[in-house]
């Protein structure tokens, strides 16, 4: 008996169902169903995944959705064709937009009011009164309406079947049998219970009547169904399914038309732009190879019908350029000459060997993934441009599905199973350790989880629930743009941010259907660079753009070789700083390698040491074949970039482009899915067949595994290197402007304002304090007669101050400033600057030009203010002024001043806390950061400093790196695992740490290996010192 399941929910009906669309489709196929309708509740979030699964199985997927109406009962709508799909999608959007995030407003009446001519209706009326509605429904859905019959083998069965039969006769509606499926297999019943428990915030044992008593809500075999339902009802399901022939891939290739001007086709326009761009990028004439590459790319793009993608991004990039918003493409798009010519990316293809297939390939047949970074402060302008140009009904953000991760899963499942909250917390906290390589299951078992009777269930259910969706959230910057109404293509919901909407599909779904998506991302460094560049004409008598910065400046590379890279994009972290003196970059390509190599992928794949040794001439470079040499020559025979690995698979093991791409994907997710192992045999045998040694093949595979998801594509590294070089050049030649640009763009980057200011002063840049007379909101450059300009710190640094209020105050400030404090008090009224802001300014020492003692100033500013409610509900502030200086407070001493500085500004321009504490005799004898390079290798030393950074990279086998800041610089401390465990209380939370250890000097890199530590935080009077922990 042929059967089609017409009522089925996936886990995209959050917390109601226990299987994924893929599992449901696979099981339906295994059971020999003709078709399966995915009818999630007011949602089409899962249909793309179901459709993808149906490509691999012999079962047809029908799109549909379930709706609940309190008065009238349960409705299921099924889509017949493309028009019906739009109708359903529009209805869902309407219901979702009318309610807050996560819910929907639906009433059965909407089925009559909205046009749903190409949909089929299945109905389960709630009670007798609801039946009155049946006539309107039958009229609205002529020949397309059925009563829905379920059977769950419960005591209510007999009665409900009887009443459905009766109803069918009474109303003259046909009846169809359906499963009301919530899971694909009975083994998911425990998980279904857990989901119920989570949703109701109870334990499984407390669910009472609500709990599903049996596993009948699953995909049942046709034999079982024949026992349960009369044959005509089952036959009806096939009749219905036959009317639904819509396939999701009918949605492809519907692109917005605006981007193509009159008289052109998309391809011809792109062709023209490409050639124009070629002339622009290569005014001296492009090399023949580049020109050929461009034409090849254009041909491929035309063949695959992807021209609109490029044109849309081109349009956005032109907008940004006109507004002076800095931008740069990243990722695989940088492999493309076309993108370079269109101005989307900035990496000159002539300089590096790029792999266009990484970007687009015939086999993959996926749309290009073009990510563009914009200045983070101005990204919103770009977003608004998109909304304006296409309209809010045609553009929306893609969704990110928030899924269960290990912590949230353990917590929710544990609670549902009745574990004590404290116990779960304990396990979760102990799991955080990245101490061992064991999976979380093994760790939990080691913690004694199995002693609990439900321990095994906890592990098993947690495993299953990992990856289940919990809710939809909006993607960071991925926009979908439709040809017409977006809601005809995919349902739109409200996001949690006001005025933002999100579609129900995520990036993967969008890619699968080749919908047009553009990624508008934010990068802080672009903002900083623009702000720095803006200062050059006035203070450095030159003008530069990102593109015009002089390349290959040896002074810049010398600076980097000294690891003087604080504030520089991508190479400022502790790990990068340690690599710079070893790798000693001398040219642009060295920077590309530097950026790519200090990442978990190459480190775990053991590429780093061989590369460095070969670079230093300590190891011979050998290539087993000319093909391999071609791929690995530029990185001295060591695979460092993702593309090299792929190219090797193709060249040495005979992988086709598509197979190599599958390998790349497997690499990207191999840790969680273990899919990489499938390729091992093929790779090794392929290489052996081509005459390579077993050892070489095995080593390559091990390197691929090490790479995992962390290898960088070369093009991506090159894009980043571009910005790294630009920011290095600016730091080298215009340091004051560089620091001001950075400071005015925070928060971003690796370092705090305190560290950046200290770095500036170490570079002989004068830094002036915040001053009520001289400062602006932003940090400013002050010209000096000779040498670097000075930096005047801005009001934005002060904690607790509002920008609007302060800019208002600046309007009232006299051009020459205030002559004394009383004048300030008189001239500036309460409504211009509130007492709390004045007090904040006083604590920051902003009044020091007018009156010395900041304690006294705060005293003079402290007033009682009371709010009076006037009739019009406006409250007035009335201040009772006490006479100034009615009491004398002592001046803060140096330590107190430093403390006030940190509390108010987060930094001090006075003596460093370490220097002050040392002067006051609070600190033991110790070596300074600048003294360490002169110490003999392996000597015992004592060092101490403020803890600014604690890091435990997963690649470093339990080693922790601690950065200690003293008054001369930063000390790098290495902490091995057993000492870390033994002395945990000393270093884990310390703000000031003393370390006895052994100096290790390798080349120019100095470390202290810790042997004993002591937390000296009690000596430190400051509370507002933050460290960057465990990133």
């Amino acid at each position, binding site marked *: 008996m042929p059967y089609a399941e017409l009522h089925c929910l996936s886990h995209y009906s959050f917390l109601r169902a226990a299987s994924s669309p893929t599992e449901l489709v696979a099981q339906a196929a295994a059971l020999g169903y003709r078709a399966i309708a995915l009818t999630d509740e007011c949602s089409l979030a899962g249909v793309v995944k179901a459709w993808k699964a149906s490509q691999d199985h012999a079962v047809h997927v029908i799109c549909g959705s379930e709706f609940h109406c309190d008065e009238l009962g349960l409705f299921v709508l099924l889509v017949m064709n493309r028009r019906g799909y739009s109708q359903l999608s529009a209805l869902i959007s309407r219901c979702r937009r009318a309610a807050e995030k996560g819910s929907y407003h639906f009433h059965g009446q909407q089925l009559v009011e909205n046009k749903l001519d190409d949909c089929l209706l299945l109905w389960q009326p709630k009670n007798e009164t609801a039946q009155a509605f049946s006539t309107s429904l039958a009229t609205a859905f002529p020949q397309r309406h059925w009563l829905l019959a379920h059977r769950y083998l419960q005591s209510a069965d007999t009665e409900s079947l009887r009443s459905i039969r009766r109803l069918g006769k009474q109303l003259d509606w046909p009846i169809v049998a359906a499963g009301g499926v919530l899971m694909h297999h009975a083994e998911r019943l425990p998980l279904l219970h857990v989901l119920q428990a989570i949703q109701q915030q109870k334990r499984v044992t407390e669910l009472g009547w609500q709990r599903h*008593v*049996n596993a009948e809500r699953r995909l049942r075999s046709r034999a079982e169904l024949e026992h349960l339902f009369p044959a005509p009802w089952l036959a009806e399901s096939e009749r219905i399914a036959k009317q639904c022939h819509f396939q999701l891939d009918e949605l492809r290739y519907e692109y917005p038309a605006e981007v193509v001007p009159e008289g052109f086709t998309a391809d011809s326009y792109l062709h023209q732009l490409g050639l124009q761009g070629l002339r622009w990028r290569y005014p001296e004439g492009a090399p023949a190879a580049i020109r050929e590459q461009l034409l090849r790319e254009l041909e491929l793009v035309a063949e695959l019908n992807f021209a609109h993608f490029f044109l849309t991004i081109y349009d956005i990039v032109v907008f940004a350029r006109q507004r002076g918003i800095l931008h740069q493409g990243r990722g695989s798009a940088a492999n493309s000459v076309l993108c370079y010519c269109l101005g989307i990316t900035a990496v000159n293809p002539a300089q590096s060997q790029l792999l266009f297939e990484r970007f687009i390939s015939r086999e993959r047949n996926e749309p290009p993934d073009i990510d563009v970074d914009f200045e983070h402060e101005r990204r919103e302008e770009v977003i608004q441009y998109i909304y304006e140009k296409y309209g809010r009904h045609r553009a929306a953000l893609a969704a990110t599905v928030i899924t269960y991760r290990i912590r949230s899963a353990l917590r929710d499942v544990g609670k549902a199973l009745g574990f004590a909250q404290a116990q779960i917390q304990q396990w979760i906290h*102990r799991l955080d350790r990245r101490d061992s390589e064991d999976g979380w299951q093994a760790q939990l078992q080691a913690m004694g989880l199995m002693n609990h009777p439900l321990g095994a269930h906890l592990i098993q259910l947690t495993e299953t629930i990992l990856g289940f969706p919990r809710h939809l959230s909006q993607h960071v910057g991925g926009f979908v743009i439709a040809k017409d109404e977006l809601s005809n293509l995919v349902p739109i919901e409200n996001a949690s941010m006001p005025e933002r909407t999100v579609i129900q599909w995520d990036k993967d779904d969008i890619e699968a259907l080749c919908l047009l998506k553009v990624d508008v991302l934010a990068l802080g460094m672009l903002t900083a660079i623009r702000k720095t560049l803006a200062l050059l004409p006035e203070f450095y008598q030159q003008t530069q753009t990102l593109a015009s910065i002089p390349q290959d400046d040896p002074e810049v590379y010398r600076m980097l070789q000294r690891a003087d890279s604080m504030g520089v994009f991508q190479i400022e972290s502790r790990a990068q700083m340690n690599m710079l003196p070893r790798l000693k970059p001398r040219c642009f390509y060295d920077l590309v390698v530097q950026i790519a190599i200090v990442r978990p992928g190459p480190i775990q794949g053991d590429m780093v040491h061989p590369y460095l040794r070969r670079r230093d001439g300590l190891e011979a470079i050998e290539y087993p074949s000319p093909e391999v040499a071609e791929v690995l020559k530029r990185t001295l025979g060591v695979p460092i970039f993702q593309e090299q690995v792929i190219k090797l698979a193709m060249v040495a093991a005979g992988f086709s482009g598509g197979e190599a791409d599958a390998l790349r994907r497997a690499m990207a997710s191999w840790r969680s899915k273990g899919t990489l192992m499938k390729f091992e045999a093929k790779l090794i045998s392929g290489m052996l067949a081509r005459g390579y040694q077993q050892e070489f093949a095995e080593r390559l595979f091990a390197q691929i595994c090490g790479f995992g998801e962390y290898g960088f594509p070369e093009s991506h590294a090159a894009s980043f290197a571009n910005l790294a070089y630009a920011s290095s050049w600016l730091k080298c030649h215009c340091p004051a402007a560089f620091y001001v640009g950075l400071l005015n763009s925070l928060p971003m980057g690796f370092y705090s304002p305190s560290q950046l200011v200290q770095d500036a002063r170490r570079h002989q840049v004068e830094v002036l304090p915040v001053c009520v007379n001289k400062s602006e909101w932003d940090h400013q450059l002050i010209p000096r007669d000779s040498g670097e300009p000075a930096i005047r710190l801005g009001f934005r640094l002060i904690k607790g101050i509002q920008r609007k209020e302060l800019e208002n105050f600046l309007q009232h400030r006299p051009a020459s400033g205030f002559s004394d404090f009383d004048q300030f008090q008189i001239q500036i009224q309460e409504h211009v600057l509130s007492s709390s802001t004045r007090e904040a300014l006083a604590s920051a020492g902003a009044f020091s030009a007018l009156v010395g003692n900041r*304690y006294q100033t705060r005293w003079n500013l402290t007033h*009682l203010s009371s709010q009076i409610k006037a009739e019009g509900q406006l409250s007035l502030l009335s201040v009772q002024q006490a006479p100034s200086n009615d009491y004398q*407070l002592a001046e803060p001493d140096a330590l107190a001043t430093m403390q006030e500085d940190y509390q108010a500004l987060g930094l001090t321009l006075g003596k460093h806390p370490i220097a002050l504490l040392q002067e006051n005799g609070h600190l033991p004898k110790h070596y300074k950061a600048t003294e360490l390079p002169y110490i003999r290798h392996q000597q015992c030393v004592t060092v101490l400093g403020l803890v600014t950074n604690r890091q435990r990279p997963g690649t470093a086998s339990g080693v922790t790196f601690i950065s200690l800041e003293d008054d001369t610089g930063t000390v790098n401390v290495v902490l091995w695992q057993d000492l870390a465990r033994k002395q945990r*209380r000393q270093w884990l939370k310390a703000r000031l740490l003393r370390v006895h250890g052994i100096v290790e000097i390798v080349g120019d890199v100095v470390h202290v290996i810790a042997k004993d530590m002591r937390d000296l935080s009690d000596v430190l009077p400051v509370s507002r010192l933050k460290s960057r922990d465990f990133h």
Partner: protein
Amino acid sequence: MWLYVTLPHLQLERLQVIQPDLQRQVAVLYDEQQQLVVQMNPLAQRAGIRVGMTLADAWTLTEQLQPYPYRETQQRALLHHLASDLYHAFAVISLDSPAGLWLDTKPMQKLYPQLQHSLTQLELQLQPWQISYRHGAGKTPLVAKLLALSGMQQAADVPIDYLPCSPVLRQKLKRMGIHTLGALQAIPRPVAGRRLGQELVILLARIQGEQQETLRYFSPPVWFTQRLPLLAEAGSWQALSFPLKRLLQELEHFLEGRQQQTRQLLLSFYHRDERVTKLQVGLAHGGYQAEALLRFCQLKMEAVQLLAPVLEIGLQAKQLQPRQHEAGDLLQGPRTATKSLAQLLNELQLRLGQQQVFGVQTVNEYLTELSWQRAPAGAALGNTELEKRPPWLIEQPLPVDIRQWHLHQGPERYASPWWQKQNGNGARDYWQAQHHDGRQGWLFYDYRHQHWYLHGWFS
């Protein structure tokens, strides 16, 4: 002179006394709502844990952490209990929940002329408790408290952090360089008040003693104590019943006046040579009528052997509480001497043992085995919206031969509860069936054992 005693780890330390193993472990009490450490033991201190730290941070410091939830009600009860003990030595006590109390030494001056005497007495009273505490002495209650909490010797040195003022005010003072109470007191009061407000002025007045501190004074709970010497030596329990009855009647009178009942009686039987036999009678449901109480005491006494003749009886009733309204009478009909349900339950529990008397309640569950639970005696029955179920349920399902039965209604399928270890993943199909001889039964087919069983009878 006021003494303030602060007991920062009271609850945990009492826990350690009951469970001595805890002393060898890193133990903390934490607030469940905010997940913060509130009390800890010395080992925890050594591990670097601090009060106010989050539980997550505490976990990172040591894997062997033993966290227990902090219970506010228990803390209060402990403090009360402590105060009751101190009441033996100090007349004027004021509680400062959750972890401190004041002692006024002035009224006790005749007994303890010097402060040192009070302190010694305090130590004596607290010694059996085995808890840690700090004390401070000052002319005003507030000063005493500040000194105790901060550990300073002089009021002027007390840091601003300990002042009971709003955080805003505290911040203001610190940002002006005023870090100690002394520095604050140096400012002329009207000047300070003008700038910093009324709150500060009142606070300073309280510290100086210019403003009275409103304290609520502790009074120990009232209880009943009486001793009755016997006219003649009593050698058996029966001989004691008459004098005991007299004492109980006095108790009934005492309780009647207060409309209270008691949950515990302490009987003391004094023998020659200063020996005492003590007997505790617990009444789960409370009682106040002399006759009833006598019966309970007799029940208890019968279980114990009288070791020696009794010269005097003592009766103490603690745990007094307001009277509960009677539950419905168990016995109906013309009998005039009715017994209340509470009384009956008390008797049963005393006679049979606490654990043996319990009630039954329904649970919202489809599965028969799970659909009822034990409940305390006298509890309400619960919902009774049951499905079609046989009135007579067989406790242990009987295997049957299906050929003798004719199934006519069903199936109702129930998956066995997977969270109970012994069940595994079975399922049962329940049917209403008729036996050949006409009886209606409730059968099920068990998929795991692949057999039919009888679970109940309909008629």
